[in-house]
């Protein structure tokens, strides 16, 4: 990757398998779900990276790995040059002052027995701030997300609307003073009108506070609206990465093409250029050989069935894709590369 030095969040070869069931002596090991495999990407400071893909493609796992809610099996996460949980790097505790997360379910992410003032102050108090001070500050954060502290300070989550609750969740993230916020389907559960308001709030906060976003969503329109870069995931792997313009206007991976084609449009003159993909993604316990998309790909070749393509630059250096057809690499190169790896 060319501009490695400018990246603020750098992720390299992230891997996470989930074990199903427990291992019983003498019986065969239960299979693992390959949730995230070999995921690498960069986010630049002040940018928004959109992450898209079908449900189950590992988007949320990546989010949880980033903020260390779950520990990766392998791979590196580097924030501002500091490797997470590595010698000379940054501890999980300090990471959470720099990176925060907003979850999808605005209700489930708030303790039902805690007034929202306490919910917002909880993070700072947990990190050693004086409770009285933190409570005072939570008013400021409520102001910042557009909730009137006089009305909502002592309310309980069930007394708020979905949009209001998600504002509380954003305020809670802000209370930790982060530079990066991961938004995991943060607006997906909201009504369209409320969604727009929250998106505007996010855009304003980003420019006011110089935030960097990692915005995870299955809604391509929303991602297009808010993101600078887009990353497309399929079965735990990155299949395409590039600027919004590049990816949306000239998708390089057949999966991205299919995703964009399957998007509903209000424009009757727009016809489907590509046939939308059918069926469900394969079982991540037992993913297909070679390119994981080959079972559903309209352009599949023999090479795709055996060799998993690597994520690499296309004719545009900043536009990456993991597809044999899009790369300039020939089959022979790939096979040679494989031999080189194996020896």
């Amino acid at each position, binding site marked *: 990757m060319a501009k490695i030095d400018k990246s603020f969040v750098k992720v390299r070869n992230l891997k996470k398998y989930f074990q199903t*069931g*427990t291992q*019983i*002596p003498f*019986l065969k090991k239960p299979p693992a779900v390959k949730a995230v495999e070999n995921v690498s990407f960069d986010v630049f400071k002040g940018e928004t990276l959109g992450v898209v893909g079908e449900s189950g493609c590992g988007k949320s796992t990546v989010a949880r790995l980033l903020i260390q809610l779950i520990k990766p099996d392998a791979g590196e996460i580097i924030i501002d040059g500091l490797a997470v949980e590595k010698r000379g790097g940054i501890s999980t505790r300090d990471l959470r002052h720099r990176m925060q997360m907003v979850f999808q379910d605005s209700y489930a992410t708030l303790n039902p027995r805690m007034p929202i003032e306490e919910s917002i102050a909880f993070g700072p108090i947990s990190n050693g701030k004086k409770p009285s001070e933190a409570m005072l500050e939570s008013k400021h954060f409520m102001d910042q997300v557009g909730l009137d502290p006089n009305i909502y300070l002592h309310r309980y989550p069930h007394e708020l609307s979905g949009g209001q609750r998600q504002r509380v969740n954003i305020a809670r993230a802000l209370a930790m003073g982060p530079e990066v916020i991961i938004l995991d389907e943060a607006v997906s559960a909201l009504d369209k009108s409320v969604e727009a308001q929250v998106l505007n709030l996010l855009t304003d906060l980003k420019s006011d506070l110089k935030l960097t976003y990692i915005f995870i969503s299955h809604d391509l329109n929303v991602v297009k609206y808010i993101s600078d870069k887009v990353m497309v995931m399929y079965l735990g792997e990155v299949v395409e990465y590039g600027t919004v313009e590049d990816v949306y206007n000239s998708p390089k991976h057949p999966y991205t093409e299919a995703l964009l084609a399957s998007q509903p449009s209000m424009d009757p003159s727009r016809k489907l250029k590509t046939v939308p993909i059918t069926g469900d993604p394969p079982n991540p316990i037992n993913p297909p050989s070679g390119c994981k998309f080959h079972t559903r790909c309209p352009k599949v070749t023999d090479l795709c069935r055996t060799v998993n393509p690597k994520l690499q630059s296309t004719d545009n250096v900043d536009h990456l894709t993991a597809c044999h057809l899009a790369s300039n690499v020939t089959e022979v190169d790939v096979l040679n590369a494989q031999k080189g790896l194996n020896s």
Partner: protein
Amino acid sequence: MFSYFIKRLLYALPIAIGVTVFVFSLVYMGGDPLDAVLPDDATAADVQEIKEIYGFDKPLPVQYIRWLGRAITGDFGTSIGTGLPVADELGRALVNTLILAICSALTGFPFAVFLGTLAGYNHGQRADKIVSGFAITGVSVPHYWLAIVMVIVFSVELNILPSLGMGPGGSEDWTLDWAHAKHLILPVIGGSIISMGIIARSMRAAVAEILNQEFVRALRSKGLSESRIAYHVMKNALPSILGVVGLEIGSLMGGSILIETIFSWPGAGFLLNEAIFRRDLPVLQGTILVLAMFFVILNLIVDISQTFVDKRIIRT
């Protein structure tokens, strides 16, 4: 499926071992187990001799292994009270307890399931309120007291049912005839009342919850007859009911001590009560071990049959 059976067995094994350790240690919980059998003026030499006879001079783990080895082969030692082998007394008593438990399970439990279903179907209506009232009375009543009240009413006041023993004239050879059945009625009711309350309550909750689910509405809208729907409801309620019934059969056996004492029913509970009175520790130990093992096996059977009924229930 096969690997699941193996898994359950492997899971039950440490519990069974734990149970044996617990039962073994019962003897030592109340201090020196020899205090009960030794006369006050026993000399140190006598004590030592008796210790050797009973094997109490060996270290505890050795005693445990020896005891376990004997118990597995059915040798629970000799009763301090009667001098007979514990296994003989226990075998006869267990059969009598099983008669009581099986009769309760075959009469009271289906009735409780029926009542619970009725209440669940009429959730919030009068039938539900009546059944729920009965059920909560059932779970709250001290069954030994209910047994005494029944004796007062049916034996003392009305004099229509016998209050003592298994059969006429204290006969212990049980046969299925009216004279023996009369002796069963009060113990069965007294012994199963709490379990019936618990089963009726669980059944009511299960049925009401299932009826409230979307799939029942879907079946109704498909135009299925109520009896077909009832089949689906029962099929879904079955695993949880199996669980409760299994647990309660265990409670019938475990709770038998009070009922058997009141009705002088010569079962395992009666034996246990006598053993407690005489501090006859071998009998106490043997009876509790056998009853607990019975319960461990019962749990295993319930788990496996639940999985048979509903393949989704696989405990990990």
